[in-house]
Each structure stands twice: as structure tokens, then as C-alpha cells.
């Protein structure tokens, strides 16, 4: 491969990778926020992404909504689902050993996957094209308008989340609970409410990712959340679990690595690369790229 075509391929895969990575970032944010608050790896989070896609499907096909209202509908419905899941499955386990609540999360994951199979059958469904995909050719690079919408929506959502977390009272309460639950309670913060809000925010971001991906691939099925869920989890660990900018960075890196591996080697190695990253990060920097070594509490 000569230099010119290498560079061309590189930039093309960078575009694909950032677009895919922004999806991972949206899902990874939920993992990291929920972990930050209650120290739970919510293994059902990938299935919330699937739920979001189905909510989007319902909104576009049955309710006939266009892209933006359907996205908002899916996010709101998933937020409610997230709150209910926490309330019913996780809250009763809050003082149980960590492993018990982790197993509960796996149970919730199976419940959502096979519950959806029961309701919607295991058949993949075609997600309607809510807007036309225009393919732009810029200096020989292929950019799909859907990629632009995915990236744009993801960026807007991440900016909104960053604003909520850093500049609103609710966001401050979230950070306080995540840092020290007892001290937060002594400020008068109702931790149950903050935890519910965290699940709502995380779930709505996953749902947005679900809708965006479904528009891109125009196909959904009840098990579609497994792989992206796992990869977003790797992205969250890569960036440093519990750290919000880390999830964004980790997601983008994951997406770019996958695109590069698919573009330069073979897409069959894509998943191996993703999980290879997990192994490397756990070996060399288990606290993640943006993670600090946690100081001992005296």
C-alpha cells in the first residue's frame, strides 16, 4: 500500500471509527455513572440499549413519529425502565454483598433479553429509514449523512450530560453521592432520588445509542445489546470506570481501534481487538486511562 492510499484509508476509518465510537461512548457513560454511584457493573445496561431501539421502533412504526420525537420518546421510555429496574431489582439488594447484586444484574439482563423475545419474537425487525441516507464524497472520502447525525446527536447528548453533572444542583448531588454516600446524606441529599436519576440518565443515553444504531443498520433484534454492551463496558474500563470524561474517551478509542482493525486487517479480528484492549488495560493500567490511583482513606 502506498502512502497516499494508506493515508486515505486511515482517514476514512477514522471517520467510521469516531462515529461508531460515539455510540460506545453513549453506552459507556451509563456504565460509568451507575458504577460511580452504587459501585455496580450493570450488566443489564446493554439490554437497555436494546430496549431503547425497540422503543424507537414502536415510536417510528406504530406511532409514526419522525426522528427527533422518536429519539426523545425512546430516551424517556428507557429512563422509566431504568428507574423501575433499579427500584425493583437493585434497591432491595443495596446492603447485600457486591457479588449478589452483580448476579442480579446478569439476571435482569437475561430477563430483558428473553422477555423481549417473548413479546417481539426473536426475529430481527427492519427499522424504518427515518431520513434518507445521503452519501457525500469529500476528497475521495465517503461520509454517510447518517454518520453525521449519529456523531452530532451523540455530541449534543454528551455536552448536555456534562453540563448537568457539572453545573446543576442535581449534578452536584450526583457527584457528592458518588464520592461519599454518608457525607452526602448529611448534606440532606436523598440518595434514593439521586440513584434513580442516575439510572434515568444512563438509560436514556443507552436508548439514544440504540435508536441511532438502528437507524444506521436498519435492523433490530432482542439480543442486539449483548455485544455493544460488552464493548461499551470495555470502553468504560478503558477510560477509567466511574469517570465521565473517561467513558467518552474510552468509547471513541474503542470505535477507532475497531474501525482500523476492520479496515487494515479484517473485520473478523474486530471483536478480538476490543477485548484485547480490556486485557491490556487490566494488565498495565487497571484504573483506566484517566483513572487515578485511589488514595488510602485515613
Amino acid at each position, binding site marked *: 500500500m502506498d502512502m497516499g492510499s494508506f493515508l486515505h484509508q486511515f482517514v476514512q476509518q477514522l471517520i467510521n471509527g469516531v462515529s461508531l465510537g460515539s455510540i460506545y461512548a453513549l453506552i459507556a457513560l451509563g456504565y460509568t455513572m451507575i458504577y460511580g454511584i452504587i459501585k455496580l457493573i450493570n450488566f443489564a445496561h446493554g439490554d437497555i440499549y436494546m430496549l431503547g431501539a425497540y422503543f424507537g421502533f414502536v415510536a417510528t412504526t406504530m406511532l409514526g413519529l419522525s426522528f427527533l420525537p422518536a429519539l426523545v420518546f425512546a430516551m424517556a421510555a428507557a429512563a422509566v425502565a431504568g428507574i423501575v429496574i433499579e427500584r425493583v431489582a437493585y434497591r432491595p439488594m443495596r446492603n447485600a454483598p457486591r457479588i449478589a447484586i452483580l448476579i442480579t444484574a446478569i439476571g435482569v439482563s437475561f430477563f430483558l433479553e428473553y422477555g423481549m423475545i417473548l413479546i417481539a419474537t426473536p426475529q430481527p425487525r427492519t427499522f424504518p429509514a427515518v431520513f434518507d441516507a445521503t452519501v457525500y464524497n469529500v476528497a475521495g472520502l465517503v461520509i454517510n449523512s447518517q454518520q453525521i447525525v449519529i456523531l452530532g446527536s451523540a455530541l449534543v447528548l454528551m455536552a448536555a450530560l456534562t453540563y448537568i453533572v457539572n453545573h446543576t*444542583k442535581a449534578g*452536584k*448531588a450526583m*457527584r*457528592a453521592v458518588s*464520592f*461519599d454516600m*454518608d*457525607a*452526602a*446524606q*448529611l*448534606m*440532606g*441529599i*436523598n*440518595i434514593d432520588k439521586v440513584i434513580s436519576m442516575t439510572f434515568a440518565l444512563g438509560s436514556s443515553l443507552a436508548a439514544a445509542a440504540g435508536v441511532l444504531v438502528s437507524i444506521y443498520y436498519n435492523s433490530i433484534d432482542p439480543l442486539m445489546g449483548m455485544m455493544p454492551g460488552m464493548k461499551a463496558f470495555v470502553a468504560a474500563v478503558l477510560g477509567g470506570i466511574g469517570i465521565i470524561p473517561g467513558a467518552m474517551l474510552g468509547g471513541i478509542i474503542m470505535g477507532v481501534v475497531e474501525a482500523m482493525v476492520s479496515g487494515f486487517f479484517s473485520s473478523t479480528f474486530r471483536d478480538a481487538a476490543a477485548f484485547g484492549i480490556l486485557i491490556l488495560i487490566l494488565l498495565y493500567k487497571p484504573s483506566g486511562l484517566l483513572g487515578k490511583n485511589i488514595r488510602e*482513606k*485515613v
Partner: protein
Amino acid sequence: MLKVDNIDVYYGAIHAIKGVSIQVAKGEIVTLVGSNGAGKSTTLRTISGLLKPKNGTILFEDNHIEGMSAHKIVGMGLCQVPEGRRVFANMTVMENLELGAYLRSDKDEIAKDLEDVFKKFPRLLERKEQVSGTLSGGEQQMLAMGRALMGRPRLLLLDEPSMGLAPLLVKEIFHIIQEINESGTTVLLVEQNANMALSIADKAYVLETGRIALAGTAKELASSEAVRKAYLGG
């Protein structure tokens, strides 16, 4: 104002607090002294609602607060400065103080209280935008106290404010506790530094392995033979 009546608190199977009763009247400084592991912090955590007593009652201004959630108790005007300060080290001094006023929406009054806190602790004003994890121990103690004051407590619980601080700083902190009390806040103070605590308190309780061993006015206890031997270094 506060009436703790015969409470029992367990950590799993461990009976940590055994039939403790404490009374704090409006305007007083009451201190709870005792050695490590006597149950002082457990008592405060139970009053604040972080732990639930198995038996007994806790009345705050004639309302039952035993078993109530911690955030509701704060809303009633009972704030705590926890042991080890527990400032939100990842946030700025200002954000910490704002969280102290979390339940309040009276913006003008919050601004006034913020000014008061900065007057009491000028060093916090200097370090307003600094991340609080980078403050010294003494500054963190001041921040923790300022943060609790932002909740406008009528009763302030202080858990070992002198812990790990240099003698001069301890003096300053105790002086400020007296000031806080003089401006109308009732104080329940837990201390290992019994000498200092008894010197500013009206009433005192001595806690020993989860039980009240002695109670009386601070003066009585400071001159009591048993207390001198056990806690005041002869």
C-alpha cells in the same frame, strides 16, 4: 432540644451502644467524651439517621427522629460535621459550601450565610475555587464546619473536630465552636481531647464501651477524680 432515650445500636451481632441516654438543652454545648471505640461516633451517626437504633427513642424538638432517613433529619435543622471531615475532595471549596445549603432555596439568606462562613473562616474565602482535596487538615475541618453551617442548623453535631490537628489549630477550632454556640446554635460535641472539650462545654457525658459511665456538668466532670485519671492524664 435533643432527647436520646435508652437507645441500643447494633453492628450486625455487635452490641455497640447499650441503653445510652443523652439530653441537650437549647443553647448548650454538650460534650460526649470517651476513649477510642467507646461508641461516640456511633451515637452521633444514630442521631443523624445514618444508623437505626434497635430500641429506644430520639426526640429532636419533640419530634421522633429515630429511624427517620438522614436527609430528612438534616432538613429539620440537625446537621453533623462527621469524623474525619469527609469533605468532597473532588469538588471546590465553593461547591462543598453550596452542597451544605442543598435543601435550601432562600437565595438571599444563603448568600448571607456564605458571607458569615467566610467571615468565620477567612482562609476558605482565599481558597474558594481550590479543589478541597488539596486543603490542609485544618482547612478541611473549617470547610466541613462551614459546610454544616450552610444548612443553618439549630443543633450542630461535631465529631472529633480536633482529630489530627496541631495544638494551635485545635485552639482556634474550639474558639470558633464557642462563637457558633454564642450566635445561637446548640452544639453536641464528641471529643477524645477531653480537656479541651470540658473547658468549653456546659454539660458532659463520659461514654465507656457503649454505656454512659458518668454524666454531669462539665465542671463537675473536669474535677472528678475518675475522669481526671482516665481521660485528662492524671
